[in-house]
């Protein structure tokens, strides 16, 4: 029933099972543009981070980690926000494309969160002297990482089943709403302990070039996120199409 509605029977066409329109190569043109824009802005960010931005007076060259650490953190949270919105839309509209988007965005977001945690740890080692500081931001990001690794595990366990997709959508909604509560609780928890506050970027009096390099990084990593998500989205769609065709072949 679902197959018939998604792909109406066309007796006149040359091939008996025409590919759905979203698999046609024409659609990929935009992806090349997006990929090229991401690559160019990333090159510009690398130049800005290592050449254009001044060396930090307090932290030295290590501060340059900020130009990809902070944008990646932003992209990770953006990715999980996309999962949240796509999950709501999937439960509401019951259109499988939102489910595919949520799945793709969660995967890319988890990759970025992993890199954020690693770079944050390396940065913290030099600035704070410890690999890990149980401060609110780092702890919340770590918990976030656990939530979305769990999300991806759930998805890999349930495969492409519709029940699994709905369950994952509910996890995508609850997981994201949990983030601010988590942040609040960890902040309150930390305030009772003596923790030394090191201004991370000292954004208030940062020179314009630092802000500009950060903005460039934000743009570059957002483009990279969009590019990767589109790729994984298409990957999941093809996977789905192959499965639908297989089921159909076995039915006959």
């Amino acid at each position, binding site marked *: 029933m679902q197959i018939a509605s998604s792909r109406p029977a066309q007796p006149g066409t040359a091939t008996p099972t025409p590919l759905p329109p979203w698999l046609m190569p024409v659609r990929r043109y935009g992806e090349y543009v997006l990929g090229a824009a991401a690559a160019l802005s990333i090159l510009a960010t690398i130049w800005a981070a290592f050449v254009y931005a001044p060396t930090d007076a307090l932290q030295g060259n290590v501060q340059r980690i900020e130009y*990809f650490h902070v944008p990646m953190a932003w992209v990770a949270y953006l990715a999980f926000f996309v999962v949240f919105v796509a999950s709501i839309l999937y439960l509401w509209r019951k259109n499988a494309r939102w489910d595919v988007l949520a799945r793709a965005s969660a995967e890319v977001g988890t990759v970025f969160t992993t890199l954020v945690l690693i770079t944050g740890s390396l940065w913290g080692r030099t600035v704070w002297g410890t690999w890990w500081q149980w401060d609110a931001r780092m702890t919340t990001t770590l918990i976030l990482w656990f939530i979305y690794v769990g999300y991806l595990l759930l998805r890999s366990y349930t495969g492409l089943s519709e029940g699994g997709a709905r369950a994952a959508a509910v996890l995508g909604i609850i997981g994201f709403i949990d983030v601010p509560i988590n942040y609040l609780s960890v902040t309150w928890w930390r305030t009772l302990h003596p923790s030394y506050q090191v201004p991370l970027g000292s954004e208030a009096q940062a020179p314009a070039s630092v802000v500009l390099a950060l903005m460039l990084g934000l743009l570059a990593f957002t483009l990279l996120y969009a590019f990767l998500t589109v*790729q994984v989205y298409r*990957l999941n769609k093809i996977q789905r199409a192959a499965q639908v065709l297989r089921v159909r072949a076995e039915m006959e």
Partner: protein
Amino acid sequence: MNDNGFLIAAYLIVWLGLLGYLGWVTLRMRGVQADLQAVRELVEQRDQPNASTPHHE
């Protein structure tokens, strides 16, 4: 300064990680496209004998 080592390590991890991920996505894409092609051929083979029937549903 030892700190530069941390910067280089962080930089390498980020880009090797992202490139590795991109490579993994490409590999999966190739595998799944081959899978789709195989299934399509299977469906075409099955559809050929009874192509005159309007639709199987």
